[in-house]
């Protein structure tokens, strides 16, 4: 099986499925992860992201489908035969070995000679070289996390899997480790597959994000692409926040779309409409605007006929950098808006306001999408996540 250990190339998942009883954790997943990239699998708990990761690691066997590295099929190999290493969620450091032996474990199993330098280098990479003789129990969570990383990286695997590696750390340490992980990934140039439910974590680190929900990939792309052009309501709500409402298409031309509901008319750029949206006049469309793109004012700022909603401020939270408003719109929705603190005053709750936005800042989704998809799960993570 030495040919498996030396397999190299992109990670390819073909029609991957994992079924537990009558619950499909992962459904017909097709995915190609480019060699050397930092790839994030993002989704709420139970979306199948960890199961996917475990199938790549060889810790769970797929019900059907294939896992490949380059042209080598590794689907039916054991985890110890794969050129893949994992940083476990709870680190899983061996408590009976010191840090040096923990990091040396993989090298020793492969019968590598002269491992001292490799181990020392790996420990230097995570800046813990001076603690080689300690036991894992004597280290803080952040240090254990870095040891777990060193223990995996030292083997120079084709693919490094990270299973919510920062979940147990406090906010400040997590930020620091995000930068650290990114630095290390650039330095060693391995393929990183990072599983997380924290959208901010995924966006700061990953080159490519796959948003997963209910065992399928909802959308795949670069962080900015996913944020600016979500293709589904789930992505729009889970990755950041979105104000979504349904409108009817009135007219379509080469560049723009005009839609309307009983509260007003809305101009959208065709470039920002999700693929597969029905653009026939009279059909429904979901209009979405990110909170930071909305401008809140007590007087109507845009003189045109498009893109304003009236509402009442329900709640205003002043954060210093910005103010977050919750606005009850005329149609009864709750909108979120972030206003930069550019010297203006905070509008107090109960004030009647105009919410306006530029046409190029709105995006469109198929009208069949559920406005609330991903909303509940996203807010569930608000306290722990961002």
């Amino acid at each position: 099986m030495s040919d498996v250990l030396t397999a190299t190339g992109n990670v390819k998942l073909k029609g991957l499925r994992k079924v537990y009883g009558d619950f499909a954790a992962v459904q017909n997943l097709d995915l190609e992860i480019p060699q050397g990239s930092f790839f994030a699998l993002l989704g709420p708990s139970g979306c199948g992201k960890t199961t996917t990761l475990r199938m790549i690691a060889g810790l769970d066997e797929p019900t059907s489908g294939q896992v490949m590295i380059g042209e080598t099929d590794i689907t039916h190999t054991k985890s110890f035969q794969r050129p893949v290493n994992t940083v476990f969620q709870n680190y899983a450091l061996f408590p009976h070995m010191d840090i040096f032996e923990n990091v040396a474990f993989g090298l020793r199993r492969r019968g590598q000679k002269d491992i001292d330098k490799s181990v020392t280098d790996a420990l230097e990479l995570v800046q813990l070289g001076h603690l080689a003789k300690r036991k894992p129990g004597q280290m803080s969570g952040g240090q254990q996390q870095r040891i777990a990383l060193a223990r995996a990286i030292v083997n120079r695997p084709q693919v490094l899997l990270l299973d919510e590696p920062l979940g147990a750390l406090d906010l400040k340490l997590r930020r620091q480790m995000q930068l650290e992980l990114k630095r290390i990934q650039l330095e060693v140039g391995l393929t990183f597959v990072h599983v997380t439910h924290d959208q901010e974590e995924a966006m700061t680190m990953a080159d490519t994000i796959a948003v997963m929900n209910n065992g399928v990939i909802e959308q795949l792309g670069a962080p900015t692409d996913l944020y600016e052009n979500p293709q589904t309501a789930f992505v729009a709500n889970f990755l950041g926040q979105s104000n979504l409402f349904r409108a009817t298409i009135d007219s379509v031309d080469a560049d723009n779309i005009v839609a309307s509901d009983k509260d007003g008319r809305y101009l959208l750029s065709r470039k920002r409409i999700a693929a597969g949206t029905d653009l026939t006049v009279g059909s429904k469309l979901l209009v979405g605007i990110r909170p930071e793109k909305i401008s809140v004012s007590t007087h109507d700022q845009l003189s045109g006929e498009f893109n304003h909603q009236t509402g009442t401020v329900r709640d205003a939270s002043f954060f210093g950098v910005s103010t977050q408003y919750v606005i009850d719109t005329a149609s009864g929705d709750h909108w979120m808006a972030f206003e930069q603190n550019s010297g203006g005053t905070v509008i107090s709750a109960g004030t009647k306001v105009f919410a306006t936005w530029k046409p190029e800042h709105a995006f469109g989704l198929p009208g069949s999408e559920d406005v609330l998809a991903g909303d509940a799960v996203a807010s569930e993570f608000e306290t722990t996540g961002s």
Partner: protein
Amino acid sequence: MAFAHALGDSSTSSGAPTTKAKRKLTPYLLLLPGGLWLGIFFVIPIFILFMTALQTPLPDGLPGQYIQTFTFSNFTEVLSRPQFLDALRRSFTYASLATLLALAIGYPLAYAIAFKAGKYKNIMLIMVIAPFFVSFILRTIAWRQILGDEGPVLDVMRFIGLASETTSVYPSSFSVVAGLAYNFLPFMTLPIYSSLERMDVRLIEASGDLYAHGLTTFRKVTLPISLPGVVAGTLLTWIPSAGDYINASLLGNQRTTMIGNVIDSRFLGNVDYPTAAVLSFTLMLSILILVSLYVRRTGTDELV
């Protein structure tokens, strides 16, 4: 350690003088019942035993009449008798064999209960403990039937051709060791089970992830982590086995006499209290020395 810790805490804690005094007293109060128990039922009897070991027969007295003297000649005399030394050596050999046998059976059993039993875990644990509901003596006597010439063990062995019509396994040193291993098996299984049960299964996954196959994972990860349980189990099996006399008297013959049997017959049969006391003392000291060597050798003091 816990005691010292408690004392350390109370000395640094602040508060009203009365609370402080009370806090200082608390650890001693907690220790009182156990301390009294140990004092009355361990320290005093040990002292009496030691004094008995120094007694000499009353001149022209009846058997069993001794006077308190302070001579150590009993020790030198008793320990130069081959009959006693053989019994002592035999005890340690049987106890060691029984411990190895119990380990060979108990470890896989504990492993299966901890990792493979699933929903049957509790039932299997109850089955390990269930024999305790039946008297120790009765269970040991049952082994006479099991190992007897007409018993199921020999029947099966004869059937598969491992034993002839004249083969006998009871009474023998084999049946004594088997009885010891059987009787102390739960003491071996439960500590190993509890250390395996506490172990994070992700460590096994991590080991596999780091290129170790099943056997290496067991050798490098599972076994070292369960070592405190193994040490506890072997001690809990070996110590009582070494001093046991029930198994040797119920499942053995004259050639399988263990030190416990000698002490028993010296004390109750020959009313030779000083010799029995010397042997008891010697047994205790040898166990103490061997156990401390063993614990130091396995280096688990910080893990236990």
